């Protein structure tokens, strides 16, 4: 296993293992994907709307976000991504990017060609299934974000976002859900939640005043997880819907 962890694509295997058990050969196939590693500066574009990329990117370190801009210059951040996430798997199939992806922090990414991804999926159906499940979890996250901007109050939106980010960090082994670093400015939180920067500041201060969070610069501590989750109407099930092994139950070749 240490050999697997040493490979630069180990974060991808780790992520896919959240959704389904991959045997040694399947893990090896992912790790052996030909790829090119790159550093990306904070703020740089990994993908622009309208691009026709021939690669998919796996995040090896750092954070990125998907966004769309409106003509007046306003930006909506659509999702935030972290270590192990595939940023643009869909472009393998869709061809043209319908949104942009920017680096939230300094990042390292591995670029994998669309052809290599398609071959992997054809040769290892269980890896293909894991990738599919990964996109389904992504769409569950999008649904929550739609509810956030459409129906939740500012306080609920921020509480929900803080809870979701915390659970995802913990899933990726990047932090403790009750004590973590939030790599986003107020402006970026505003773009995630459809609020403005001062409104985000005021909302965070309200959560702070009620001891639902304790902030120090980017550090967020959650004294009582259930209280914060209640405020945000947050239930983590959508982030790990396969924990009861649904894939194994429906697979024709159960995990060894």
């Amino acid at each position, binding site marked *: 296993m240490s050999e697997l962890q040493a490979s630069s694509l180990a974060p991808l295997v780790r992520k896919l293992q959240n959704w389904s058990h991959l045997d040694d050969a399947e893990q090896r196939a992912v790790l052996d994907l030909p790829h090119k590693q790159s550093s990306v500066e904070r*703020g740089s574009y990994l993908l*622009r709307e309208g691009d026709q990329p021939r690669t998919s990117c796996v995040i090896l370190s750092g954070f990125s976000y998907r966004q769309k801009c409106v003509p007046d210059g306003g930006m909506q951040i659509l999702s935030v991504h972290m270590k192990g996430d595939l940023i643009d798997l869909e472009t393998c199939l869709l061809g043209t990017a319908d949104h942009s992806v920017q680096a939230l922090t300094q990042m390292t990414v591995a670029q994998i060609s669309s052809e290599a991804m398609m071959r992997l999926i054809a040769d290892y159906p269980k890896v293909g299934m894991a990738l599919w499940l990964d996109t389904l979890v992504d769409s569950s996250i999008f649904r929550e974000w739609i509810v956030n901007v459409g129906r939740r109050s500012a306080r609920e939106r921020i509480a929900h976002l803080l809870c979701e980010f915390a659970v995802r960090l913990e899933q990726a082994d990047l932090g403790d859900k009750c004590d973590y670093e939030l790599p986003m400015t107020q*402006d970026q939180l505003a773009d995630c939640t459809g609020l403005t920067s001062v409104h985000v500041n005021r909302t965070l201060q309200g959560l702070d005043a009620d001891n639902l969070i304790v902030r120090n610069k980017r550090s967020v501590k959650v004294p009582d997880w259930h209280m914060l989750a209640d405020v945000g109407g947050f239930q983590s099930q959508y982030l790990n819907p396969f924990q009861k092994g649904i894939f194994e139950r429906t697979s024709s070749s159960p995990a060894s």
Partner: protein
Amino acid sequence: MLAKESFEISLPEMQRYFFRLVDDQSALDDPDGSELLDANAARARALLEARSIMKAQVDEGCLCLGCRIEVDNEEGERVATILFKEALEISGF
């Protein structure tokens, strides 16, 4: 293809402005600030911020027309002050 040049960014030179929310009793400092083109853009942003906070206050059932947004540049100079009561036209009363 994720070309090398797509990693590069070219933006006009931006300035950082800080938006402080002030009411009768307290002030809420802005630790991050926002990067904007110039003082005019900062003033326009402050107007949006004021209206956004007023919207939230209306939702909460308590509008504070005595609040204001103060905008400072990175040197700490005040570049704009937006009074809530001047950020919207009120009619019908």
